[in-house]
């Protein structure tokens, strides 16, 4: 927040710069900083959150879920990524996944997720041991664990976001998902960079 406040620009700056330029040209003697004048403001939207939110929606909508998961709300948990949660709530909350309305839940960290109600899709931002512990806690549950950290598939995630050529793509461990009764859809499989068959 502090950084944002410090660098925030003002659209009035352009007018000031123009006026200054005119004053200088017309000999008003106003010292100019026009060479530094800038009015464009950086869009601070979390671009990766936008992409990941849409991917998560497709992961929810394009896979085949076990019959036991096809009633009630379609629950998605976001652990440790507030902006992704906000993006999901903004654009995807209550959109239908089959006959189920999408419901988004936010958790600060893996610890706070403990005791949470049953989820269909869980996105976990923290990696490492926290991810391993989460994967362990989900054993036997038909929940699809999605991560964005190095070595996440080895730690028990089914889908892991990776950077390929400056783009967000994902790896899939389809075997593990199938063991849980979640059948990864062809559309999702076809865009994966690496996957176990």
């Amino acid at each position: 927040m502090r950084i944002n406040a410090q660098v925030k620009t003002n659209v009035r700056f352009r007018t000031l710069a123009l006026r200054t330029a005119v004053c200088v040209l017309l000999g008003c003697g106003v010292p100019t900083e026009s060479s530094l004048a800038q009015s464009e403001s950086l869009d601070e939207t979390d671009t990766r959150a936008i992409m990941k939110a849409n991917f998560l929606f497709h992961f929810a909508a394009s896979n085949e879920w076990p019959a036991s998961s096809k009633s009630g709300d379609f629950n998605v948990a976001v652990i440790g990524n507030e902006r992704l949660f906000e993006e999901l709530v903004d654009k995807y909350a209550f959109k239908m996944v089959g006959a189920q309305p999408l419901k988004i839940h936010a958790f600060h960290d893996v610890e706070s997720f403990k005791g949470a109600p049953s989820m269909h899709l869980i996105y976990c931002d923290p990696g490492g041991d926290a991810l391993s512990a989460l994967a362990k806690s989900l054993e036997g549950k038909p929940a699809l664990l999605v991560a964005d950290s190095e070595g996440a598939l080895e730690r028990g995630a089914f889908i892991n976001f990776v950077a390929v050529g400056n783009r967000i793509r994902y790896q899939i461990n389809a075997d593990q998902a199938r063991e849980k009764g979640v059948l990864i859809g062809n559309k999702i499989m076809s865009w994966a960079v690496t996957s176990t068959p």
Partner: protein
Amino acid sequence: MKKYRTTHWMQAVLWGAMVLVTCVLHAQSPVERASRLAQSGSWWEAYDVLAPVIQSEPQRSDARAWFMLGFIEKELHKSSGESGAEAPHRVQSVASFEQALSMPALPTKDRETAREALDFLSRTYFREAIDRVEGFTPGSTAEILGLMSQYERIQTTLNPQFDKSDQRADLHRYLGQAHAQLLETERHAGTAMERELFEGAVEHYGKSLAFDPDNYASQYNLAIVLYNHGVRQLKRIDHNTSMFELMEIQDQCVALFESALQPMQQAYTQRPERLETLKGLMTIHYALSQKEESDMYRSKIEDVLQKR
């Protein structure tokens, strides 16, 4: 009878005086008559006397006639409220002064006055160009550039060594900003106009940099326009976006983000301590999934803030 003769004599004198005055007036040249009328502020009357005969001899070869017409046209322009590169009285005034200056017979004092008048007129073109950038509307670029060209042409006439680079760089930067501001309003979201505004912004920042390659503001603003346009595309992603479309949009956005990186890095090279460029680089690298680079600039921002 005597009284009748006296009255008759007075009428004859009066008539003679009138004839004499008329002869004197006709003896004055159009330049002299126009000058007298101009001195009394009767600009239109002065114009009516001089303009119709300016192309006829002897006025045509008279530097003073062109000088006078230049002034008359200048005043008519000021009172008319006309604007635009083609405002007729201003165009004529400039042409008349230039004609006068091209004639060696123009006295030194008049020559200096004509140069001052031309300088004044050129600045009115510049001021108008700036006003139009401030109230920018799509399609007004040609008019703005026309006004600026007039300013530059006259300044070059007055001073053949006149260097237009700095002001051109500024004008194109302002035009870039004007295009970008309209883009930010989202008024033209998803339309051909949006594309036009985006391309206009990029083009003008590019031209600004062609005139002044080290212009920090143009480099920074160009980077922001490219980056923000990518973000704008991303923001339109929603639940109706297919995977195929998502990948296509991502490709377009990454291309824009990559294009934004170079000018932002150039801006950073010039002003390494400025938070806005550090933040720009941090954000662009983040959008390009380059976490290490993004984190590096984040820590630089923290360093700068700590020093303050």
